[in-house]
Each structure stands twice: as C-alpha cells, then as structure tokens.
C-alpha cells in the first residue's frame, strides 16, 4: 500500500517537479531568434526598365546563380533602381509584381499553329512557323499587290495584309519591324499609340 502511495505521489508531483526545475532555471531553450537569411546575397544583378507604362522606371533584377556557365539564371526578385532619376527605387503595384509576369503560367513557350476550323493548338517548330507565315504572306502579296493606281501612278502598296506593331517592344525591335513591314508595301500598319 505504501508503494502505491509513493507511486501516486510520483504521478501527481511529476508536473510540479518539472515546473519547479524550470523555476530553478533548467529551461529547455530554443535557439535564439534570428532574422530570415537575406535572400539576395550572391545573386546576380541586371539593370532593366519596367515594361509597363512610360514612366520607364529603372529596375534591378536579381537572378539565381553567378552567371557561371553551368548555372541557368532565373529571375526571382525585382526591385526599383535607386539610382534612376525618375523612380528613385520606387515601383508601382504592377512593377513591384513584375517577377510574376516573367514567370506567368500564360507565357508562350513554343510556336503553335491552329488549322482552319480546329479547336486545338498544335506545337510546331520555328522553321515550320516561319515557312508557313512567309508562304501565306507571299501568296497574298503576289495576288493582291497594287503596283499602279487607276491614274497610272506607281503606288507599290499591299493592302490585304496588315501589321499591328507592339507598344512595349524595344526601339530596336520596332525599328527592324518597320523596316521589314514597309519593304513589303504594307500600309495597314498601326500600333498602340491610339489605344
């Protein structure tokens, strides 16, 4: 019976003993708090310009890897360029979320083709894409090109195919686009300046 009593004591005093031990300072401590590891250490920086509105904020893009041959860079963070005279490091909500544009699930990755009446895209190669586009252009141009107007003046225009140019592609892309489009005689040429 005594034994039982002792056992009983053990049980009911166990908790107290532990807390007393703690009270005496035998505390089981976690590691002390530290802040999150600074995530940009070691990443590569690239200067860029925000592709949205025409304030043209300066960006610093941070990518994985140190640009070594075997490291495939992937941009994981973007923030404002503090040296930029206009934005001085700031970014608007769109700009601050740019990294999600680069990695949007809706980014196109491969040339695709939709046949007349089809309900699906079909992946094609670049060569197939260029060949098909050029063939369609040439057939239409050869058929509908206007060399002279009704007054007999040389007009050299192609009116049955149009080209809508970008609003955010670079000057260099825009320049070469203009050069090529005009060389074909296209007049139905416009960009986002209006809308």
């Amino acid at each position, binding site marked *: 019976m005594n034994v039982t009593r002792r056992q009983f004591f053990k049980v009911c005093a166990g908790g107290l003993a532990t807390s007393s031990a703690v009270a005496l300072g035998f505390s089981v401590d976690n590691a002390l708090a530290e802040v999150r590891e600074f995530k940009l250490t070691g990443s590569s920086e690239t200067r860029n310009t925000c592709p949205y509105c025409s304030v043209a904020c300066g960006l610093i893009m941070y990518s994985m890897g140190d640009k070594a041959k075997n490291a495939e860079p992937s941009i994981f963070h973007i923030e404002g360029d503090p040296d930029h*005279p206009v934005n001085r490091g700031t970014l*608007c909500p769109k700009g601050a979320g740019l990294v999600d*544009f680069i990695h949007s699930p809706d980014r196109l990755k491969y040339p695709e083709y939709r046949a007349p009446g089809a309900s699906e895209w079909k992946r094609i190669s670049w060569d197939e894409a260029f060949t098909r586009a050029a063939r369609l252009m040439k057939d239409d141009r050869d058929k509908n090109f206007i060399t002279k107007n009704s007054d007999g003046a040389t007009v050299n225009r192609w009116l049955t195919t149009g080209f809508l140019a970008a609003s955010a592609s670079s000057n260099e892309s825009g320049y070469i686009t203009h050069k090529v489009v005009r060389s074909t005689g296209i007049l139905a040429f416009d960009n986002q300046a209006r809308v």
Partner: protein
Amino acid sequence: MTNHWVDIKNANVIIVMGGNAAEAHPCGFKWVTEAKAHNKATFIVIDPRFTRSASVADLYAPLRTGTDIAFLGGVINYLLSNDKIQHEYVKAYTNAPFIVKEGYEFEDGLFSGYEAAKHMYDKSTWAYEIGPDGYAKVDPTLTHPRSVFQLLKKHYSRYTPDAVSNICGTPKDTFLKVCEIIATTSVPDRTLTFMYALGWTQHTVGSQMIRTAAMVQLLLGNVGMAGGGVNALRGHSNIQGLTDLGLLSNLLPGYLTLPGDKETDYNAYISARAFKPLRPGQLDYWQNYAKFHVSLMKAWFGKAATKENKWCFNWLPKLDKVYDVLQVFELMHQGKMNGYFCQGFNPLGSIPNKAKLIAAFSKLKYMVVIDPLATETSCFWENHGEYNDVKTSEIQTEVIRLPSTCFAEENGSLTNSGRWLQWHYRGAPPPGDAKPDADIIAGIYLKLRELYQKEGGAFPDSILNLTWNYDIPHAPSPEELAKEYNGKALADLTDPKDKSKVILKKGLQLDGFAQLQDDGSTSCGCWIFSGSWTEKGNMMARRDNYDPSGLGNTLNWAFSWPANRRILYNRASCDPSGKPWDPKRRLIWWDGAKWTGVDVPDFKPDVPPGNPMSPFIMQPEGVGRLFALDKMAEGPFPEHYEPFETPIDTNPLHPKVVNNPAARVFKDDRAAFGTSKDFPYAATTYRVTEHFHFWTKHTRIASILQPEQFVEIGVELAKEKGIKDGDWVKVWSNRGFIKAKAVVTKRLKPLQVNGKTVNHVGIPIHWGFKGLAKNGYLANTLTPFVGDANTQTPEFKSFLVNIEKA
C-alpha cells in the same frame, strides 16, 4: 511630354485632367507629391470620377465626360476677360499678333469651308494673310480684328462660367476657383503643368482637347519653362519610341511621312514637307527634311538607293488613305483583308466593339500573333462561354502563334514619356523556345526573301534589296540595330564652312542629326534618335544621375531625343532679350557667345538674343500656334462638340452641330450608336492602378490585388436601381453587354447638365477570358467604333450605357 517626369516637381500648379496619373503612372506621380511637399504646389484634378489622383488633390472639380474643351475654353475666356495672360510671351512667342486671312469664319458650330457631304473641311481660309514680302502679316498691338488674338477672344467669349457649368456639370464656383488658381501662373515666375493621358486622346475631339490645354499654356507663358508644358503620359513603355519610329500607317521614322497617292514626284514630295519660313529670320528646321529622308532610305536600301532612282522613292508604298486600326478593322469586317499580324498587341481587347472584331478576324485567311503571353486575340476562335461565345469549327482562320521574349530576356532601349531612350539588359533566358521580336521578324523576312529569290513575284525589289548586313542574319543584335538608327557616315563628312576639314570619317557613327546629308553620304534609320549611339558608345546606357541645377535635368542619364534635350522649346524659358523669365528656374541663357545652360538649348546655339529668330524652331513662323492653321481636321480653334453618344442629345452651344463634323464614321457604325432614351447613362472606360492593360491579369500578384471585373456607380444611381455593393450588374450599350460586380461609391456624383441629371457609369478594362484573374468580359464589347478626326483614336471615354441589377 514637352518636359519630363522629374521636371513636374518644378511646377507651382499641377492639373491632372484627361488622365489619372496616380493610378496609371504612380511612380511618375511622385513628382506631383514632391512638388506639393517641396514647392508648395497646388494640385487640381478635373475628372468625371473622384479618382485616386483626386484623393490627394487640393481641389477636385467634377465634369461630364467629353466636355473638356468646354471647360478649358472657359478657362481661356476667363484668362482673356480677366487679363491674366503673360503679355510679353503671348506677343513674342505665339501667333496671337498674326493676321488671319479674310474669309475665315466660325458660325453655328461650323468653321468656314465645311463640305457636308464629305464630312470634311476645305481649309483654305484657315490661313494667315500673307504680305507682299511673302511673309505672314502681323499686328504687334494685337488689336486688328482679324488678328489671332482678337479672333481667339471672340471665339471663346461664348464659354462663360455659366455656359461651362451648364455643359460640364461642374459647379460654377468650383470652376471659378480652378480658373483663379490657373491664373496665378500667368506671372513669369510661376508655372502650371498639365498632365494628361488617354482621358483626352480617346474622344472624337481628343486632339483638340490637348490643343486647348496647349493654348492655355501659351497664354500663360508656360511652354518651354521648367515646371510647365503639356505633358502626355504615354500608356505603354515604348509607345513613345514606336511612335517616334513611325510604326503607323502614314509615317516613316522620325515623324517623316509617307507620300500620298498623288505625290508621284520626289521633289514635290520633299518640298511639300520642307516648309518655307512664314516670318523673316526663322530657323524652320523642317527645311532639312530631305537630309532626314535620304539618310533613312540609305539606311534601308543601302547602295540600291541612289540619286538617280530618287533614293528609291517609288519603293515606298503610297497612301490612298490612312489605314489606322479603325479603318483596317472596317476593311477586315468587309472581308477585304486576308492576313493580319499582331505583334505584342491584343486588339480584341483594345479596339472598340468586340463583336465586330470577332466577325472581322473570322474573315481572315491567316493571322500571325507574336506575343510573350496567351492573349485573347490569339485565342479569338476559342469558345469561352458567355465571355467569348464563338463557333470554333466555323472559323476558318489559320493562326500562327509565335512566343516572344519579355523585357527581362533581351537587351535594348525603350523611350519613355519624357523622350528618354534607356538601355536595358538581359537577365535570364526566355522560357522554352521563345525568341526576341527582332529574331522573329528576321526569321519571317528571311523566309520571305528566300521565296522571292526562288520564285520571283510581285514587286520583289524592295524586299530583295533591303539592307541586311547583320552579323547573324537570323538574329540581328539590338546593338547593331541601335547603331543603324543612330546613323553613320557613308563617306568622309567635311565641315560645311571649310570643305577641306573632315569632321567625321567614313564608316563612323554620327554624333547627331546635324551631320545628316541629303546627298547619300550619311545613313540614319531615325533622325531624331541620332546621337543615341555615337563613336563615344551607347549614349542610352549612360547612368550618371548628376543634377547640377537641382531642376532634374540629368543630362548624362540615358539619351533624350532630340539631341539629348530634356525640355522642349526651352528657348521660350527666356524672354526675347535672352534673360530667363524666372531666375530661379534658369534652363538656358546666352553667355555672350552662345546659348548654354542646364539643358541642351532648343535653338540655334549661335544666334544671339535680339535676332528675329523665335523659339519654336520647328514651325515656319517660329512661334506657338494659338490658331492652328490647317493642321487640325475640325477647325483652327478647338470647339466643344458632344461625344457621338451624348446623354443630353444636343450641343448647348449650337444645337444644329452636335458632334464633331469632321469625325470619320463608317456607315454601319453610325447605325450602332445608341441614344439617351435607351441608354441614359454616360459611361467611360479606364484603367485601375492594380492592373496594366490586359497584361497583368496573367500575373498572380496583380490578380490578387484586383481579382474580378467590376463597374463603379454613384450612390444615387445605385439607390435608384436598387443596386448594392458587390451585387452583380449587367451593363449594356447598343453594341453588347457585360456583367460585373458593382462598386457603389460616393466618388461618382450625379451632375446637373443642361437641365438634366447625368449619372456616370465607370467601366474599368483589364478583364478578359484569358489569365489568372477571374474571367470577365472584354470592356470594349460596349464601346463605339468612332475615332478622333485627326488621330482616329477611338472614343473609349464617352459613350452611353444602361445598367440593371443582374
């Protein structure tokens, strides 16, 4: 922008009208808050909606959508009748003293020369009276009854505060308060800046709205001043650059223009563009047109462009009319187009009347889409239930979709609103097999050239002879292309004053457009960009943000066209004697030998003050135009015309001429306009700050911040219609309907207009049937297919709808 973003901080009064800079351009808007905080600036917002810009404004004035000319016309009237103009500036730097030709008239809403059948004007009477010396006549006293000044006064005398309030719905006292604040900047040491965007351009009278603001600025002497100007806040990152590069139906790079059908003679083509000075001693810079043009043709066609073949003049297509988007989609809708390319552009969301666009696309034989994202346009043939209810199997259009890189994956330059060309660098490879736009264009071109080489065909010359001397033909580098548009010497260039002195050796990059020649010895792909990549290297990549004057002109940061100039017309910041109007804001000054300063002088550097040469050197008369001559389609003075869908059915100023008489409207589209009987509410479309156009709905963060389509209506209208916050509503126009959540707000108040209560319905764009955000209707389902008379920009900002709880 005549000025640039940072310069806004120098303003004393800032007006955001026809735009919503805080939401659409938040980081540029910081210079408004800077001006307020450090320049004690007063900030005014004039808008149908109490926007996020208005939330930090000192004064908000509501107005009915589409009535900005009435408002600003009222401001002109206030300034003139209260003598709050900067006299010296107006007299010396505007065409106020010029005498207008006899025969010019304005009556009952029409200017002289209207041809009703053609919906066009014969503009011959909108001209100066030319004296026997061949120059325009002027009256420095401004009292001649046909002086621009007197005509201006007469024209705007009708825009009384009461008339303004009656048309715009702006309370009269609020309007007068705005006028008083604007008038404070008529002194030489205070400036006003206007910041506008598509809230002005997307009207049938959009260009004239902007003109009215420019006229206010000329009267106040604020053009060319630090903290002044008329500042277009362009919507897309490089729409300035792509416009500069002339990617438009009627343009060539650098605002050169394509020849028209009748311009068969090269010399006539040039001389029609190299205007003769209209006043003695003017610089009239467009006289150099031939130099720009020939250098362009040399850049494009190289050795094939010779003096003998008029620099390939006939290789350029000639315009029979302007093929802007509205015209093109009209033709496409008529089945007259077979192919269409969309490069980084989502017209299905961006051009009015979605139903018409779907029908038009379905008639194409082929469509090629070049884009980083899966746009609605590329998927126009996909059925997405109520959001895009099409019969896929019946659409016979072939679609080729080509993945392009985004900003982060390529080198290159973008031109911002302030005309800065800034270079950026590739940070990572593109996803999958995506290619840069230039490579895609090259790929298509090289295949096409190959086909023409093999098979021959219609007029192959221009395609076969296009200069293509890139190191890797299928992947022209941005660096090569930039050097090409900057231009280079094709022969040794000599000093015009001393022919024996070579100033630039053959093959070297040009220092700027001043070196261009019309004899084929220079090539330059875009004259206004010349100076961006010189022998010193890539000027667009410069990163020195030193700002010695504190005015924000960081001349060693990137490159600003033209000639690295930051503030256009800056000669007008000094009085005729060469003294800065405001000593605290000196941009340039005469140092005894030449013009110098904290900006690149917008003037001939060695012409001293006192010379008759005036500051607006691109104009034949050398001064700013209060009277626009024949440059505008609907009149030399802006006049208030109602939107094509007006909630008041009349024009209180002239009931017989309600809308813009010169706007181009296609027949079928006119039938698709609604009237206030069926569609009583004034609607306007716009962006919200969380999203960028139709792009960011593809990004997670932006989709989190504003996930679902909504429309905004005022508390009063909501009450009338029994609509509560968050209810589904149906909004419809004569062209279609959308369904969206209702945001009921105190920020849209009913306005009293011409004896009628007008409620607005606000329709943000941004949603569609593709993307991460909740699917929605393309807002342009509702919008009318009618555009500005000058630019053909669609009238997205003013139309009529009805609304009910769904």
